[in-house]
């Protein structure tokens, strides 16, 4: 699922009431997981809410709604953001990666981040893992990737942890080999990439 699809989804309790809608996705400090959401009121004219939602309180995330048990799942938005900042030892700034340039550790520019791909399992209550970025491929990547000839937007698998700043996202150079243009087959590409990283280190 792409995080751009989460924006403006209604937040609905299991009792069937829509209590808010998603305003923004909050990433954990290392950019490796979704920590929670900031919220806005329902309806066109309602502004942002002072409450937020941490990922652990989400019962289910789907294409049409974010489900929560009840009102008590909402917490002050500062708590959500503070929890996100402290959720890892990483020194990265996290936050907004959209527009960042993706650089490999060997120094080549793969392109610009245009969306974030996440993976989660509603059943196991586990984390909402950031598994990849959708990137606008740089000319260099287009030239080296056969898939780049047709598409300028490609999916790049990410390692479990990575360094993120407001300018750059650093990825291992081997990620280039796992670039994909198909979200359906992307999960397998991420698996293969992460397995290879573990095997290599």
């Amino acid at each position, binding site marked *: 699922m792409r995080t751009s699809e989460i924006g403006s989804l209604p937040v609905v309790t*299991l009792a*069937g*009431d*829509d209590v808010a809608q998603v305003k923004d996705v909050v990433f954990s400090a290392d950019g490796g997981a979704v920590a929670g959401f900031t919220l806005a009121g329902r309806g066109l004219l309602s502004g942002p809410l002072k409450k937020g939602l941490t990922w652990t309180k989400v019962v289910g995330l*789907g294409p*049409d*709604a974010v489900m929560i048990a009840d009102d008590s799942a909402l917490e002050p938005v500062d708590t959500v953001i503070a929890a996100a900042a402290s959720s890892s030892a990483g020194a990265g700034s996290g936050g907004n990666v959209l527009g960042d340039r993706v650089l490999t550790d060997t120094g080549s520019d793969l392109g610009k981040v245009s969306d974030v791909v996440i993976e989660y399992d509603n059943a196991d209550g586990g984390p909402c893992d950031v598994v990849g970025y959708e990137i606008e491929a740089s000319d260099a990547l287009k030239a080296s990737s056969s898939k780049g000839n047709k598409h300028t937007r490609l999916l790049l698998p990410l390692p479990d942890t990575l360094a993120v700043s407001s300018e750059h996202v650093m990825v291992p150079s081997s990620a280039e080999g796992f670039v994909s243009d198909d979200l359906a087959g992307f999960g397998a590409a991420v698996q293969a990439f992460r397995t290879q990283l573990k095997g290599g280190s």
Partner: protein
Amino acid sequence: MLYSDLKGRKLVDTTSADTVGKVDGFLLDPATRSIAALEFKKTDHGSVVVWSDLTAVGADAVTIGGASVVVDPDDRLADLATKDGTVLKKRVLSDAGEDLGTVHDIDLDPESGALLELIVGEKKHRTSVAGARLLGVGSYAVVVAAE
């Protein structure tokens, strides 16, 4: 029994043999997953009959043992009777956040009033959701457990 078949059925008082109303709606209690009361129109007084006060829900008529059981909704029933409590034509969400369609009809047990099934979707893609999966009914959606 489908609610669409029940709607419009006459309400007959078995003590006087008079028709005292017509089925006009149902109040579903999501906590018990059953019909709490039926709503009637064209009654002389009151508008609802609590399910346990019904003598029978038959193929041609709904019967009661006296006109006195037709009452005005109490606070609990009035809550169910608001727009938030209605089920028909409301969107159905699974607890995994997936929109399953809108409620077209319900299937209920004429003996106990238990909700057997929600009939969801439009004509061409109609699916049935077991009543036991119902989690809640609110202002935005009917929420059911994901399969």
